[in-house]
């Protein structure tokens, strides 16, 4: 355990945790997306899935706790790393020009991350917290989801947020392999391409959910 904390102290170690937590979050996103996709089969399927998860009792609380920890560490590390990066370049260049290494995604990682954090809070307030507070079951939640996306502002914000997510993943996915030391002159290039594909897939996948929800409500 002390070794794991030791690692955390250095730049490379922080990036290692950033990468591992990012990878786990990607896993969560896959799960989340597949869960949400049950909406395709109608409100009932979605409600049944929600009720099934609620029915696992302590397990789901435990899973949510772990997930929260992963999210928090990813966010926390992101903030620390970004601040120390800013500190390392204490005087800015008056002209700065990329040599072609940076991409839009890599440059905006802290900002896309920040937008995703805002989105996460709103998202949790919108659904998770409201569900717990109101003591809703799956069906009530399913109805609420469909209703909520009738609001054009919310719908737009969600679409925007999942595009941001796609951008974040399009750098984060290959970058995490580099950070944990899985690197190769050729295969890393393939991972870079795969990351872009994944980014698009996640963005499209998550973007379709609100539309399905709205369609179901009609």
């Amino acid at each position, binding site marked *: 355990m002390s070794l794991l904390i030791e690692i955390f102290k250095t730049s490379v170690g922080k990036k290692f945790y950033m990468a591992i937590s990012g990878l786990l979050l990607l896993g969560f996103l896959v799960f989340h997306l597949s869960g949400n996709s049950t909406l395709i089969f109608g409100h009932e399927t979605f409600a049944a899935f929600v009720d099934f998860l609620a029915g696992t009792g302590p397990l789901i609380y435990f899973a949510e706790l772990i997930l929260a920890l992963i999210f928090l560490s990813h966010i926390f590390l992101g903030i620390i790393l970004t601040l120390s990066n800013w500190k390392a*370049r204490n*005087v*800015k260049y008056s002209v700065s020009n990329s*040599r072609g290494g940076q991409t839009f995604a890599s440059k905006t990682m802290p900002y896309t991350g920040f937008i995703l954090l805002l989105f996460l809070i709103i998202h949790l307030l919108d659904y998770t917290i409201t569900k717990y507070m109101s003591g809703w079951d799956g069906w009530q939640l399913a109805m609420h989801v469909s209703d909520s996306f009738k609001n054009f502002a919310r719908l737009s914000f969600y679409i925007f947020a999942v595009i941001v997510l796609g951008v974040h993943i399009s750098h984060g996915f290959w970058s995490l392999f580099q950070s944990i030391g899985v690197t190769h002159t050729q295969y890393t290039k393939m991972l870079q391409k795969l990351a872009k594909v994944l980014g698009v897939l996640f963005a499209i996948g998550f973007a379709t959910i609100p539309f399905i929800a709205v369609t179901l409500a009609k």
Partner: protein
Amino acid sequence: MSESNTIHLTLRVWRQPNAATPGRFETYEATNISTEMSFLEMLDVVNDQLALNGIEPIAFDHDCREGICGACGCVVNGQAHGHLKGTTLCQLHMRHFRDGDTLVIEPFRAKAFPIIKDLVVDRSAFDQIIQAGGYISVKTGSAPEASSILVPKKNADLAMDAAACIGCGACVAACPNSSAMLFVSAKINHLGQLPQGQPERYRRAIHMIEKMDELGFGNCSNHLECEAACPKEIQFVNIGRMNRDYIIAKLFHNEEAF
């Protein structure tokens, strides 16, 4: 020689008397610049003019002027060593600029590279990183017969690729985070590729990385700007390999823990 032309440039140069005094840009005209000149020769010509007009010449580090010593380097129009790929500033020739161009010339900027004067920065942090472990501990006289150490050609080539680093600091200057990862990883991989480097491989990774952090360099965000700016075209995979060595070192070869 290729066709020689002369061009006129406007230079906006960062002037700063010392670390404690704030700097500012000054504008100078560089007239009748032959396109056969190197960038540093262009600065020489401008400096001669400044000196004759009683203005102190622009201070800049330089030495070999053939791209190997690593002394020169500043940021030209936002790019370390200028825009030409795989080229140090001393090997960047004026034929790559157009008549009438305005060039903004700034020093390498990083907290770990404090400015000494004008375009001259203090890169001694790199020496400190090497001191932390960028060597193989072999005393003079104790070496075995050279041919008793077999090095597969591939490893020798990879080691040489990494060892080509000239320690100029362009990677730090180009990195949006002022990170020294490319420099550090080049040394770790140069030695890590060779059988001679194995006994200290993990210890080296730990000590060099910890020293790098301590000196105030930033983290790696995998922007790959370092690789794009490196005049010796050292590859970013070195950073990945260094990360791997470090994680393995910390988890499985930690001398303090075992």
